[in-house]
């Protein structure tokens, strides 16, 4: 491991931290365009964060240390996850140190702390949000693991960089199993990031919200960290999707400045497209009732398993 690699790793994490709110702003802007509205500024998420960071923190009297610690833990896990996902370069020290299953575990850790913190104060809405989040999470996780399993079967490794390298160098062709798993992954992404068919990120209508209900008790810098973390989560999921399904452009092996520039340009292009796609999905679909969410996620799981079965069956010839 050369010292330059650590520098690149640091660059990747900082880029993820900086780009995540921008990506969120881009998705919101595309959504506004799709709905014939004038969009808010792309920089609105940053301004929001700055505003929140300058405010005074207010905490409920009966909050335990867990409530204070949770934003930092969630933010740290998401940052670490951003370092593990090979969004630009595959041969980095953090990227090769953990595989995809550890990554799913990291997301589960963040989810658990978030739900516990939501239940900590003891208000009805926080508890409701925490419970709904766990329901969505425990149904989404098997689907996500199944998606990763299919990609691992194709490339004979559970390490994300190995999967990315294998799929990027493979001969270009139609792969029904990858197409099915891509659909499954998109559904998991929508559910996990509280996007529209499962949860509406723009609403504060109490009875339907999941993610926002958990953040009701937070204020100022804690809220800023939580919101930044959820922007980072969306960014991370998008990058996992790129690593599994559109790995072209990622720098592999020995990385020079040119390869790095190409990788950054490719990532920006993919993010722009993904943001547009996400906005289209969110515009054309209506929010499901909460009780319909399990059905939605069961379909995601079904797609992932179909991908696996099709691979096993058709790959046998």
């Amino acid at each position: 491991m050369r010292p330059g690699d650590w520098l690149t790793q640091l660059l990747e994490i900082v880029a993820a931290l900086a780009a995540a709110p921008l990506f969120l702003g881009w998705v919101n802007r595309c959504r506004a365009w799709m709905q014939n509205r004038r969009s808010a500024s792309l920089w609105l998420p940053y301004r929001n964060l700055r505003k929140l960071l300058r405010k005074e923190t207010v905490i409920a009297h009966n909050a335990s240390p867990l409530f204070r610690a949770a934003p930092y833990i969630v933010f740290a896990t998401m940052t670490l996850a951003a370092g593990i996902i090979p969004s630009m370069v595959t041969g980095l020290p953090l990227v090769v140190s953990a595989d995809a299953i550890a990554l799913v575990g990291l997301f589960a850790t963040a989810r658990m702390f978030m739900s516990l913190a939501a239940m900590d104060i003891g208000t009805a809405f926080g508890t409701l949000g925490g419970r709904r989040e766990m329901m969505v999470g425990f149904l989404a996780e098997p689907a996500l693991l199944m998606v990763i399993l299919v990609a691992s079967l194709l490339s004979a490794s559970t390490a994300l960089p190995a999967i990315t390298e294998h799929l990027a160098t493979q001969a270009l062709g139609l792969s029904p199993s990858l197409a099915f798993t891509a659909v499954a992954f998109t559904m998991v992404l929508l559910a996990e990031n509280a996007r529209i068919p499962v949860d509406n990120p723009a609403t504060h209508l109490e009875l339907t919200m999941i993610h926002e209900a958990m953040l009701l008790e937070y204020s100022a810098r804690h809220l800023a960290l939580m919101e930044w973390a959820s922007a980072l989560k969306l960014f991370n999921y998008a990058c996992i999707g790129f690593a599994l399904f559109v790995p072209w452009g990622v720098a592999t092996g020995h990385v020079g400045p040119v390869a790095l520039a190409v990788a950054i340009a490719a990532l920006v292009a993919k993010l722009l497209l993904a943001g547009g796609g996400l906005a289209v999905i969110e515009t054309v679909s209506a929010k499901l009732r909460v009780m319909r969410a399990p059905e939605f996620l069961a379909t995601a799981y079904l797609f992932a398993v179909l991908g696996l079965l099709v691979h096993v069956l058709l790959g046998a010839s």
Partner: protein
Amino acid sequence: MIRIPLDQQLLDSCAALMLLLSFAMLSQRRSVSLVNLYAIQGAVLAAATLLLAWRTGQGHLYFSAALTLVLKALLLPWLLHRLVRRLEVYWDTESHLNVSGTMLVGLIIVVFSFGLAQPITELASTSTRSAIGIALSVVLLAFLMMITRRKAMSQVVGFLSMENGVLFGAMSATYGMPMVVELGVALDVLVAVLVLGVFFFQIREQFDSLDLHHLEALREERR
């Protein structure tokens, strides 16, 4: 890295699509969408047959593809749509199992039929033999649909989808059945739909609904 030829890739995709459409039909509650899905499945089957005909150079497969397209993607869906409109059965709300449960049973069926098709796959010498398992699961999934649904409309669509599966299986195991058999089956299916259409009206006249549940309790005194 072995490069798979493009037509093989397309055929594999068609097989995967057939399976996906079977699951979509299994989860679909609206009669109109169900008929549309059946039409799409017919079109995919026709496309697969056409690809295979082009690939193997067997002339009769072209006829088979044309027959499938006209009958299963256009004529039968049109007849079924007309039936849905006339009978005003747009919904099939109650099924015996909920959607997620049906899906899980469906997955088990797919695994089962993959296992069942393994020996046949090893014996077959065609290049599309890996799709036999998928054809078998299309048949069994259509069976499942007929078992779990109550309304006559969905059962008929399930029956027709099963026939699609049989044809697909014959195609991938032996490059299609002899022309005479295929024509006979096509005629059978057409007549079946026409007869069942008449049947629907009779059932509804008798019971004011298309729920086949009523047929289980026939008694003399009720005439």
